[in-house]
């Protein structure tokens, strides 16, 4: 026996402080005046409650300490960790819960007055309704059998009416292995009544309890009660209430095995037989089931046990507290860890920590919202100003560009005029010189004289022309040059660039804000899920006046009501659960209707069904405070805050959409510009070609023209004009092309930048192209005007731009091609996978399992949260140390006769108990099998796994080696496939057959890819881990061998490539899933020298040859079998 200390946390009215060695001292209870008992032990509690709609199973640990001195006993009850399993017609849900409350109940029972003290409903119920029936009970110490008629009113069910309830009671004393026991048995024959809703209900039940003669230790207690209610449409709704208590020691080993006791054994099957614990009879009737039968059952249980004991000892006390009273507060594991749960040892401060964490989170959220709002405002203002500036800068650039263009045209005209004028003057001088020469020649022939006269006329006419041209030239005046304008343009351009940089920075800011909003929204969602009603400012500081006081006073009141309980209210908005007898522990937030509440394991609820006026959720507090406006005000506050944040998010989202539209239209414009540019380029090329040809021709032609030949003069003039036109056309084409290219460059630059940085840019426009000087080809032609030089900075920039543009264009094209190839590959893989999945659905594995009345038939896959089921006790052996935690280690069945499969005490059939004891040791993670599951279907696999005897699919898949070995074993296959030799109704035998068949089916599925064998000289390998890394090389003469490599798993390609084998080798790394993979190498050719040979080197080889080679002819394949994860 274990030495234990009992430390009473509250001084009993008895005034006794006992330090006892924990030996249970069973004293003749009849001599109560001398009774002196102490018991400290643990309890395993289980309930399974069904109301036709939902089966609620709870498994819980508890610690109990009792001291009796004389006529008074003092009991402390501390509930521990719990697991809940819920099943309805749609499926199941399960979760573990950590108990975070302290000692939940304390009782003092006075045997003399037969009154129970304790500030809770259990005591009230006993004193008011049960105690009076104890009169006339048979004396303790001897076997007895008697009946008791109990009024329905004393079952404490409001509104129910009917005849009295007959309880048949029996009390047997016996000795087993030298120890005294008492067995209580009660039966309640069927009785009928009407519930407050008018339903006809028939109810019956039975219960048994095994304890020491002093009723201090609950070795075993089982209760099974049923009811049938007739719905309005005549449907019969079944109810079932089952409860078990069993005492365990500190190692959680049950103290007693009832199967070993002749007096008790016959009762086991009545409470725990397969037919007794099956969930059947789901009723499809809308609406919430009336819980009256469950309440009646629970109260009847307490009543009957009390009557059987003749007092309110542990069994009825614990039963009452567990089913009707407060059995603690819990947090679901995921919530706990999500909130940075501290160790359980800090039970008292846990709620505080949780509340503080949540409060901090909420406050931070509010602050963050304010930060976001402020940043957004700044962004908004800046961007608006920037937009205006950019527009102005664009206008400026445009204006200057136009001015440059105008001036340039003028300059061109001016230069052309000057060119013509110079030419004419040159001709004039030439003619004048000829005239002078001829005039001084006395011996001119008549022909010469005629020529001279013509010359003189030409000179005269030309003089007039020259005068006219000089006048024209004077009109131009001093056009000046482009330098000033170009300088202005440069300034405007750099201003625009500067603004462009600001725009980029601002775009980044918007990006940051968007990210902050996303995070903030996620945070808000977390808080809301936790039940936090986010109001502006911190929780308590900014609550409406007076409300904080209300909350505090309510908390004080509740603290008083529940004694030592650490229940807090204000701000306690974590996932606080309580579980009551029917599993309904929540008051519907809107209606406050107790019967409408439901326990949902995925949401947070705050209130307990049995603690109806308790508001753990801030929202409830606001309601219960009676200040109806408060909730509205808070809601408004929430709306404001939420609205602003949401608006922020929405507006950014809206901007994204807007920008997308703008970007798209800009893209269209850019495309058009591109096409236009190409056209201009063609044209410019043609003009250039024509001009160059003309230049070449002129070189040959101009010698032919004699300036003294009048006839040739006309032709010369015409020719010169023709040349001038060609030049002008070329220049114009060049200029237009330059402008177009510049525009295009800018557009492309903008598009690339916008898409990369921030899609929400709201100003799609961008500066137009900068003007250029006319890029006049420098010519050494004296008759061609050279024009001003192009600024060197501009030339360099143009060259840089051209290089960058070409490089970026090339990169874009390459990337686009890569993306296209990848998309095609993905599409192929997806189609292939979909086809495989569909093939699996179309041809499911079918065999006919026999009907097996198990709760697991036809259920949705159960998701068990991965729970680390850690022991939460200190090494202190006292059950009631300061942290009043209860051990949560797993019960060991093996020491009992028979195994767990013998359905010891029926615990194996209580789902929550299974769940509680499997958590932490049973594999639950299915993530690594996702693809495999997707291929074969989760539902089918789950069913097979359960039927194969595994607790869940993850366990089965984790045991795949065993399953595949079994399925590969021909002996087992033959044996398992053979139907059992049985005639009919061979439930157990067929169940075992189903199990074997399911194991086979699972093994076959896992073996789906087993028919892979290494060929062509390659041999199987296994690798550690799941990264398949290998080097494929041509280890002979590198002669151009080409191979296709395909890696498959579960029938689908996961890697595919074609490569030329090199001496240096090509390295590959492919991620594999659990299961066999095949590597198929196909020789595409034999290179220069046949055959196609290669060496393969594998990394991380756990089994097989790490270096292998093959030799193939064209078209031949070599297959390699790879088993990863070894």
């Amino acid at each position, binding site marked *: 026996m274990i030495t234990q200390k009992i430390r009473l946390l509250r001084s009993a009215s008895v005034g006794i402080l006992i330090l006892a060695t924990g030996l249970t001292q069973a004293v003749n209870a009849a001599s109560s005046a001398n009774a002196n008992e102490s018991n400290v032990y643990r309890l395993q509690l289980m309930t399974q409650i069904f109301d036709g709609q939902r089966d609620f199973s709870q498994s819980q640990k508890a610690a109990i300490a009792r001291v009796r001195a004389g006529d008074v006993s003092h009991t402390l009850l501390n509930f521990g960790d719990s697991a809940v399993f819920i099943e309805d017609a749609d499926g199941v849900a399960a979760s573990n819960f950590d108990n975070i409350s302290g000692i939940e109940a304390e009782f003092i029972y006075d045997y003399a007055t037969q009154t129970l003290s304790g500030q809770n409903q259990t005591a009230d119920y006993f004193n008011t309704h049960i105690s009076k029936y104890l009169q006339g009970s048979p004396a303790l110490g001897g076997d007895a059998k008697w009946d008791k008629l109990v009024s329905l009113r004393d079952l404490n069910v409001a509104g129910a009416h009917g005849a009295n309830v007959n309880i048949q009671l029996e009390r047997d004393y016996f000795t087993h292995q030298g120890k005294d026991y008492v067995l209580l048995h009660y039966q309640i024959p069927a009785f*009928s009544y009407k519930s407050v809703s008018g339903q006809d209900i028939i109810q019956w039940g039975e219960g048994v309890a095994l304890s020491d003669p002093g009723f201090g230790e609950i070795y075993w207690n089982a209760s099974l009660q049923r009811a049938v209610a007739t719905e309005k449409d005549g449907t019969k709704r*079944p109810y079932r209430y089952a409860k078990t208590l069993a005492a365990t020691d500190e190692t959680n080993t049950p103290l007693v095995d009832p199967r070993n006791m002749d007096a008790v054994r016959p009762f086991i099957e009545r409470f725990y037989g397969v*037919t007794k614990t099956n969930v*059947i009879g789901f009723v499809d009737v809308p609406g919430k089931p009336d819980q009256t039968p469950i309440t009646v059952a629970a109260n009847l249980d307490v009543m009957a046990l009390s009557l059987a004991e003749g007092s309110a000892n542990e069994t009825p006390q614990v039963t009452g507290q567990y089913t009707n009273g407060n059995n603690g507060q819990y947090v679901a594991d995921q919530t706990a860890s999500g909130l940075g749960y501290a160790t359980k040892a800090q039970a008292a401060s846990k709620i505080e920590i949780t509340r503080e964490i949540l409060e901090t989170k909420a406050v931070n959220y509010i602050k963050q919202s304010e930060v976001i709002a402020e940043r957004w405002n700044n962004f908004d203002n800046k961007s608006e100003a920037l937009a205006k500036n950019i527009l102005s800068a664009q206008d400026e650039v445009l204006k200057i560009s136009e001015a440059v263009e105008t001036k340039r045209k003028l300059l061109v005209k001016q230069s052309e005029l000057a060119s013509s004028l110079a030419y004419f003057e040159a001709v004039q001088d030439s003619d004048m010189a000829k005239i002078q020469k001829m005039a001084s020649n006395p011996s001119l022939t008549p022909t010469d004289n005629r020529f001279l006269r013509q010359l003189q006329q030409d000179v005269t006419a030309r003089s007039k022309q020259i005068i006219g041209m000089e006048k024209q030239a004077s009109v131009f005046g001093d056009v000046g040059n482009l330098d000033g304008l170009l300088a202005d343009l440069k300034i405007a351009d750099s201003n625009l660039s500067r603004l462009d940089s600001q725009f980029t920075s601002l775009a980044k800011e918007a990006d940051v804000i968007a990210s902050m909003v996303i995070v903030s929204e996620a945070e808000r969602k977390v808080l809301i899920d936790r039940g936090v009603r986010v109001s502006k400012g911190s929780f308590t500081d900014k609550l409406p006046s007076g409300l904080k006081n209300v909350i505090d006073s309510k908390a004080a009141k509740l603290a008083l009501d529940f004694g030592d309980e650490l229940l807090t209210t204000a701000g306690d908005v974590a996932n606080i659960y309580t579980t009551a007898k029917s599993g309904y522990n929540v008051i519907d937030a809107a209606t406050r209707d107790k019967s409408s509440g439901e326990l949902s394991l995925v949401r947070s609820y705050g209130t307990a069904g049995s603690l109806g006026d308790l508001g753990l959720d801030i929202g409830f507090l606001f309601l219960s405070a009676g200040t109806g406006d408060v909730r509205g005000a808070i809601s408004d506050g929430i709306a404001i805050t939420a609205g602003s944040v949401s608006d922020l998010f929405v507006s950014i989202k809206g901007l994204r959409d807007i920008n997308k539209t703008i970007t798209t239209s800009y893209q269209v414009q850019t495309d058009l510009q591109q096409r236009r540019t190409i056209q201009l380029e063609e044209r410019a090329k043609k003009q250039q070609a024509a001009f160059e040809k003309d230049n070449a021709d002129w070189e040959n032609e101009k010698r032919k023209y004699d300036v003294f030949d009048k006839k040739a003069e006309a032709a010369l003039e015409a020719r010169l004009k023709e040349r001038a036109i060609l030049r002008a056309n070329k220049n114009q084409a060049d200029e237009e092309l330059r402008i177009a290219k510049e525009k295009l460059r800018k557009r492309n630059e903008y598009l690339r930048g916008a898409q990369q940085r921030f899609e929400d840019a709201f100003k799609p426009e961008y500066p137009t192209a900068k003007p250029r000087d006319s890029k006049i080809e420098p010519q050494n032609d004296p008759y061609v005007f050279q024009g001003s030089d192009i600024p060197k900075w501009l030339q360099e920039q143009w060259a840089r731009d051209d290089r960058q543009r070409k490089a970026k264009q090339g990169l874009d094209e390459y990337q686009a091609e890569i993306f296209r190839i990848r998309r095609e590959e993905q599409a192929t893989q997806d189609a292939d996978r979909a086809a495989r999945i569909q093939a699996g659905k179309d041809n499911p594995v079918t065999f006919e399992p026999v009907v097996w009345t198990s709760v697991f038939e036809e259920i949705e896959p159960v998701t068990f949260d991965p729970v680390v089921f850690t022991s939460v006790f200190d090494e202190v052996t006292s059950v009631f140390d300061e942290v009043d935690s209860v051990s949560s280690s797993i019960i060991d069945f093996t020491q009992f006769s028979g195994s767990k499969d013998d359905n010891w005490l029926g615990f194996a059939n209580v789902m929550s108990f299974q769940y509680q004891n499997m958590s932490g040791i049973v594999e639950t993670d299915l993530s690594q099998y996702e693809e495999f599951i997707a291929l074969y279907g989760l539902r089918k696999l789950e069913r097979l796994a359960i039927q194969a005897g595994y607790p869940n699919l993850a366990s089965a898949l984790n045991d795949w080696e065993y399953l595949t070995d079994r399925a590969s074993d021909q002996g087992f296959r033959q044996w398992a496939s053979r139907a059992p030799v049985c*005639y009919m109704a061979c439930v157990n035998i067929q169940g075992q057959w189903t199990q074997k068949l399911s194991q086979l089916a699972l093994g076959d599925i896992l073996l789906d890819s087993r028919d892979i064998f290494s060929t062509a000289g390659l041999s199987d390998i296994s690798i550690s881990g799941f990264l398949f890394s290998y080097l494929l090389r041509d280890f002979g003469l590198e002669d151009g061998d080409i191979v296709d490599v395909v890696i498959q798993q579960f029938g689908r390609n996961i890697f595919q490539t074609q490569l030329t084998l090199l001496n240096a080798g090509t390295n590959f790394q492919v991620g594999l899933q659990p299961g066999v993979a095949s590597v198929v190498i196909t020789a595409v050719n034999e290179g220069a020298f046949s055959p196609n040979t290669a060496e393969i080197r594998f990394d991380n080889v756990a089994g097989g040859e790490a270096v292998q080679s093959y030799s193939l002819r064209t078209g031949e394949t070599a297959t390699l079998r790879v088993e990863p994860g070894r």
Partner: protein
Amino acid sequence: MKNSLLFRYLNTVALLFALSILPVSAVAGQQKPVINASTDKTNTFGSIGAGDQTIIQTLDGLHTFAGHEVTFSGFSGALGMASDTAYILVANGVASIDSQEAKAGEVLILPPYGGRSAKQRFDAKRFTQAWSEQAKTASPDVYESFKRVAKKQRTAMFFGRYKTTSFNVAAPGSGSQELARRSVVGSDTIAEIRFSGMQDPSAIERIVIEKFVSALAAEDAHTVANLMDPTPFGGADIQGGASGARLLMAHQLISSQNWAQQFGDVAPTRMDENGNWQLINGKIRTQLSLRPVGDFVFIQSINTGV
């Protein structure tokens, strides 16, 4: 030849059945009268209920048992009923159904609903060991016949021709399961239907409806209860108070209406293929829904309206 005979018997080894001890002991205390073939009076075989085993001293001729026409010739042995089988143990003589002829040491197993019978061997030693002293005293001749069979079987077992199995025709699965099953389908009402030889599901439904309606009109609460859907009361096992609850509900149902007046003389008619039936008596319409539970159908609900 010998070898082939040996092998043939080896095939039979796997089908050697043992009969349960429990039901015989139970019957011993409330033993049915032994049928004497020399008189014209015989007990009807329909009086054999689930769990009963009747010792037959001598029987000849064609008789109906568990919905089957059985020809007895110089027969002495036992007849029994479990929840899902009826059986004829031959100690002497022959019992045959159609072409199946069971001789001494063999048992005819009769499934419900007129299913094809099967002939197997039974473990006579274990059967006789289960006899109470009262049964031995009441039927010593038959007892001795069974013992002779047991002796022969012992010899065969010694030579390896026979082997015992643990399958109990009277309690397939386990004793507790048989008792649970009996609580659902073991009542006389249901046994009478299941072992009537009727095979047509529609006819079976009709007879269930008719019996239920008649019982309601006659205020026969037991029959009404037996035919009520056991599912809400525990499903596959309604021992331990559930039967009483069902009976209570039957009483309530009976007392809720004047059913005789309600039904009149009208016969029920099928409404659909989903087990819904109705009786229309003038303006009064009563709808009954059936629910299949195992291989039987029970009354799931009854609704009346105008």
